[in-house]
């Protein structure tokens, strides 16, 4: 494409179908713990 460059291959929609396995960490967002917003997390299944 000339005017648009897509920079990622997102998985949001496809992950909706499978549900969560729940093995990932809790994501505390408190600043004093380095707020671990989910955006900063990785998927436990994929990281294996």
């Amino acid at each position, binding site marked *: 494409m000339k005017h*648009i*460059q897509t920079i*990622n291959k997102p*998985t*949001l929609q496809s992950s909706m179908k499978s549900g969560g396995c729940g093995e990932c960490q809790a994501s*505390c967002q408190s600043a004093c*713990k380095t707020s671990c917003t*989910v*955006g900063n997390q*990785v998927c436990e299944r994929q990281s294996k």
Partner: protein
Amino acid sequence: MVAGIFFWTKGLIDIDRRIHKFRQGDAHILLDINSGAVHLVDQMIFDVMDLFDGSNDDDVRAELAERYSPAELDEALSELHELIDAQLLFAPEIDVPPTFKQSGIVKSLCLMVAQDCNLRCKYCFGDGGSYGARGLMSAEVGRAAVDFLIKKSINRRHCEIDFFGGEPLINMKTVKAVTQYVRAREIDSNKIFKLTLTTNGMLLNDGAIDWLNDNNISVVLSLDGRKEIHDAMRPDSTGRGSYDRARANFKRLVDSRGGSNYYLRGTYTRRNLDFTNDVLSLHDAGFDVLSVEPVVLKDSPLGFTSEDLPRIRDEYDRLTEAYLERRRAGRGFFFFHFNVDLSNGPCVAKRLSGCGAGHEYFAVDVNGDLYPCHQFVGREGYRLGSVFGGVDDPRGLQDYFRRSHVLNKPKCRECWARFYCSGGCHANADLFNGDIRQPYEVGCEIQKKRLECAIYVQAVVGRVD
């Protein structure tokens, strides 16, 4: 059609719930909220996306006829339709509550091993580390917490414990006893524990450092940046600054573990709105895994109000440029909040489910009492039982926390950042608005700016590397 008297009305879809577009650095960025696709676009597409809803091509052509030629607009619209067909633009709304294969499991505990501290940080939310009740956790309480977690994590393999305070190293005895117990119970329970300790560094002598390394404990180290900023914010009980001691101890610790398994984290306040200098100062001090975050304080001269937001946003722009500049110069560092994986982030269930406080994550105070998280310790009405007797929750608070996910928070439902933020900090929402479902607004604005910077960083890095 006479230019200037055209009125564009939105089509069937609510565009604001589908896309978010912004400028950052030299880039025009278009985020398709519900697919997570990130597009770098040119000025023309950026303008078209003020109007385009997927079905109003003619309206777009008419409205932008003075700025772009028909051929250019045809090209733009055809590329946008290609994205729609690939479900990378206007992807359907995700409106299902988070579903996990299992619910009702506890994943992690924060152990307040010492509700006491050897520093007197000016922004401490824990009342000088005491949380209203100074004391140390006994090994017995600590071991009961481990048993509670093993039982409540059911068949989940991974468990996490964070040694927190106050300053946990004041109570090294219990930290050691709990760790020893964890390692023994890991075997009989077939669990894998991740242990973390958050420290101000004052008591990090060689013995403590060796022990932390030998026992594979991750560490979160508190250093605020420039010496003058750190010393003003983090004095000891005699009023003396703690920077030199903390920095020297942290450096020994980090070097001794080959630069891995740590985070150096700082807090910025209204006093250092030029916090880019603090991030760079941490890097210059010899650390390269960094996080610096806004303080959250109500009615304090150190805390932020909405009036500070323009300045804070500008500062994130500066930080972004400084971060990229060092990266381009071959001496980059890791900045926690810029590290967003746009392709392999967590599943939707995780993204919607929130932080886990109060149902999959609890804090345990020195007496073994359970609270939704460390920030709630001592807050009236939030005790949720004890590690000895289990959850005791007649008011159904645990379930209320579980159901306080993004889709049940009116502001978050509408927010473009909902899949990255997951609904903010409950403790902050409670502090500012008395309701865990009503997020703390200044925090939201900072979060959104930080995310724009992070998405830009990922886009730029992807483009260059």
